[in-house]
C-alpha cells in the first residue's frame, strides 16, 4: 500500500478516489484521517431490494452516501409503448411491486384524462377501497421489513399474517394475489363477488386494534426508541427542496396529501385525517405510517357503507370490453370486443400527467398519445426515486446503523426506482 502522503506523485486509484471526496465539513479532522469507501452491494441482508450504497466512512461515521440504482431496471416504460393501452396495465403494475394498485390507478387515470371518459361512481368507490387496502398492505410490508432490519423479528411475522388476510381479499375480488389486473381504463374489470364486503368488514374490525398491538410491540422498546428517536431528522424545507412527498414529508410536519388537496376518484366524499409528525426523525416516519393504516381503515369502512349501485366500468364500448353475455346476442358487442382485443382503443392525441397519493408519495403517470392504439410514451414518476435524493442529506454525519434504520424508514422500493 502506498503511503498516506498526499504529495506523492504516483497515487493509486484508491487514493485518487479518496481525494475526490470533499471533506470540507470535517474541519476538525486534518489530513491524517483515512476515509474508507465501503460498498454495501446490491445483495445485502437488508430487505429493501437491490439497492447499492457506496458509503465513505470515517470510522463508523458516514461522510458521504451515494446510492447506485439500476440493478432492477426492466424497461417497463419502453415495453408499455409496444402494447395497446389496456394491455399495458399489467406491465405498468409491476413497477412498484408492493403497491400495484397505485401504479395501475395512476396509469388508468392518465389515459382516462386523455379519453375524457367518466368513471362510474361505483367503480370509483371500489377503486378507493382497493387502493386503501393496498396502502395498508404496503405499510405492513414496510413495518415488517424495517423491524426485521432493526432486529425486531416478531413484528415481521405478525405483519405478514395480516398481509395474508389482505391477499385473500384481493384474491377473492380479482383472482390474483399480487398484480391483479383489477383496474381497467374506465373502471374496474368486474364487480366484487358476494361475501366480499363482509370479509372486508371483518378485516376492518380487527385491523386498528392490530395496528395498535404492533405499535405497542415497538413503541416501548428502548432499543427501538434509541435507534429511531431524534435519528436523522430532516426539516420540511429541505425535504421540499429535494422533491420529497408522502409520509416522509408528513413526518416532518408538512400536511401535504394529494387525497385531501387535489382529490381524485371521489376521495372528497370521505372523512379522514392526515397523520403528521413533528420532528421528522425516524420515529415520526414510522409512526405516521402506522397511523395512516388506521385512517385507511376509516376510509374503507365509509366507502363500504356508502357503496353506490351501478356499473363498474364505463358504458362506452369503444373503451371497455362488453360483458360476456352480450356477445351471444349483439353483433356490435362482438365487433367491439374483437377490435378491443386485437387492436385496442384509439386515444386522441395529447399528453396527460395524472398524479395520485401513493404509499410512498406522489406517484404520477405521464402518457403521451399520438392517436394510435399504443401509447407513444409512458413515464411513471415514482416517489422512491425522488425520495432517495434526500437520503444522503439525512444520513451524513450519522453512524452506519443509523443509516440502515433511515434507509429502512425511507421505504424505497427499488422496482419503482428502476422501473
Amino acid at each position, binding site marked *: 500500500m502506498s503511503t498516506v502522503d498526499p504529495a506523492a506523485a504516483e497515487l493509486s486509484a484508491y487514493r485518487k478516489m479518496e481525494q475526490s471526496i470533499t471533506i470540507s465539513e470535517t474541519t476538525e479532522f486534518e489530513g491524517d484521517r483515512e476515509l474508507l469507501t465501503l460498498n454495501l452491494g446490491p445483495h445485502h441482508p437488508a430487505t429493501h431490494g437491490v439497492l447499492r450504497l457506496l458509503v465513505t466512512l470515517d470510522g463508523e461515521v458516514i461522510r458521504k452516501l451515494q446510492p447506485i440504482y439500476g440493478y432492477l431496471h426492466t*424497461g417497463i416504460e*419502453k415495453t408499455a409503448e409496444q402494447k395497446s393501452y389496456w394491455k399495458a396495465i399489467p406491465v405498468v403494475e409491476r413497477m412498484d411491486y408492493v403497491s400495484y394498485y397505485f401504479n395501475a390507478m395512476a396509469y388508468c387515470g392518465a389515459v382516462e384524462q386523455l379519453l375524457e371518459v367518466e368513471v362510474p361512481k361505483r367503480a370509483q368507490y371500489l377503486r378507493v377501497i382497493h387502493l386503501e387496502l393496498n396502502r395498508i398492505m404496503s405499510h405492513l410490508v414496510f413495518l415488517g421489513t424495517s423491524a426485521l432490519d432493526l432486529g425486531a423479528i416478531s413484528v415481521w411475522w405478525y405483519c405478514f399474517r395480516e398481509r395474508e388476510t389482505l391477499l385473500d381479499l384481493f384474491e377473492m375480488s380479482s383472482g390474483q394475489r399480487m398484480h391483479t389486473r383489477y383496474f381497467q381504463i374506465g373502471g374496474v374489470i368486474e364487480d366484487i363477488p358476494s361475501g366480499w364486503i363482509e370479509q372486508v368488514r371483518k378485516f376492518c374490525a380487527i385491523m386498528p386494534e392490530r395496528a395498535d398491538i404492533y405499535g405497542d410491540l415497538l413503541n416501548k422498546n428502548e432499543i427501538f426508541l434509541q435507534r429511531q428517536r431524534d435519528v436523522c431528522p430532516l426539516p420540511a424545507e429541505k425535504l421540499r427542496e429535494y*422533491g420529497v412527498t408522502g409520509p416522509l414529508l408528513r413526518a416532518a410536519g408538512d400536511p401535504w396529501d394529494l387525497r385531501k388537496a387535489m382529490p381524485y376518484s371521489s376521495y372528497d366524499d370521505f372523512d379522514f385525517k392526515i397523520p403528521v409528525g413533528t420532528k421528522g426523525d425516524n420515529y415520526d416516519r414510522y409512526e405516521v405510517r402506522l397511523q395512516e393504516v388506521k385512517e385507511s381503515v376509516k376510509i374503507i369502512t365509509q366507502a363500504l357503507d356508502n357503496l353506490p349501485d351501478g356499473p363498474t366500468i364505463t358504458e362506452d364500448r369503444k373503451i371497455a370490453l362488453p360483458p360476456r353475455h352480450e356477445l351471444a346476442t349483439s353483433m356490435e358487442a362482438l365487433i367491439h370486443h374483437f377490435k378491443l382485443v386485437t387492436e385496442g382503443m384509439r386515444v386522441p392525441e395529447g399528453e396527460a400527467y395524472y398524479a395520485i397519493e401513493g404509499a410512498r408519495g406522489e406517484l404520477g403517470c*405521464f402518457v403521451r398519445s399520438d392517436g394510435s392504439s399504443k401509447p407513444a*410514451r409512458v413515464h411513471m414518476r415514482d416517489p422512491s426515486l425522488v425520495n432517495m435524493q434526500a437520503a444522503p442529506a439525512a444520513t451524513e454525519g450519522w453512524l452506519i446503523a443509523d443509516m440502515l434504520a433511515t434507509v429502512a424508514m425511507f421505504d424505497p422500493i427499488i422496482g419503482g426506482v*428502476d422501473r
Partner: protein
Amino acid sequence: MPDAVTLERLVGELKASDAESVIDTVQSPGRVAIEIKPESIVGSLEVMRAAGYEFLASVHGIDYYPSEPRLGVDYELLSREALDRVALTLRVSTEDPHVPSVTPAWPCASNHEREAYDMFGLIFDGHPDLRRILMPEDYEGHPQRRDFPIGGEPVLFTHNEHNVPRWFE
C-alpha cells in the same frame, strides 16, 4: 389545469422576463403545456417559482419521433397554493441534444435528469454528476429512443434449447 386568465398571466410573465422564451402553448384534455426555448428554461422555471409553482414534480424526456425536433423534455410543475399543475416543455434535436440543467436551482431534478440522459441521450449542461443511472455504465445507446430496438432474448423451450448458445458453451 390553469384557466385561461391564469394561463394568459403566466405566459405574460414568462414573456416579460425573456421575450422569446415562449414558443407555444399546447392544450390537452386536463393539461396545458407551455413550450419554451431550450436556452431559457432555467429563467422560465424561476418565473414559475415566483408565480407560486414551487414544486417540480417530474422532469422526463420524450421522443417525438418522427416529428422534428425529435427529443423533448417535460417539466411538470405543481402549485400548492393554487392546487394547480402546469407543464413546461422544450424540444431539442438529436444532433445537438444540449439542455441547460435545472438541478442547481431545483435539486429534486437531479435523478430525473440523469435518467433522461441515460434513456434518451439528452445532455444537461451544468448537472453536477451526469452519468448513467439505470443502465450499466459502459452501455452503448440510449434505450428509450423510438428507433432503439426493443431487444429481448429467445425463450428457451425444449425444441430450441439446443440451437441457442448457452452459458456453458
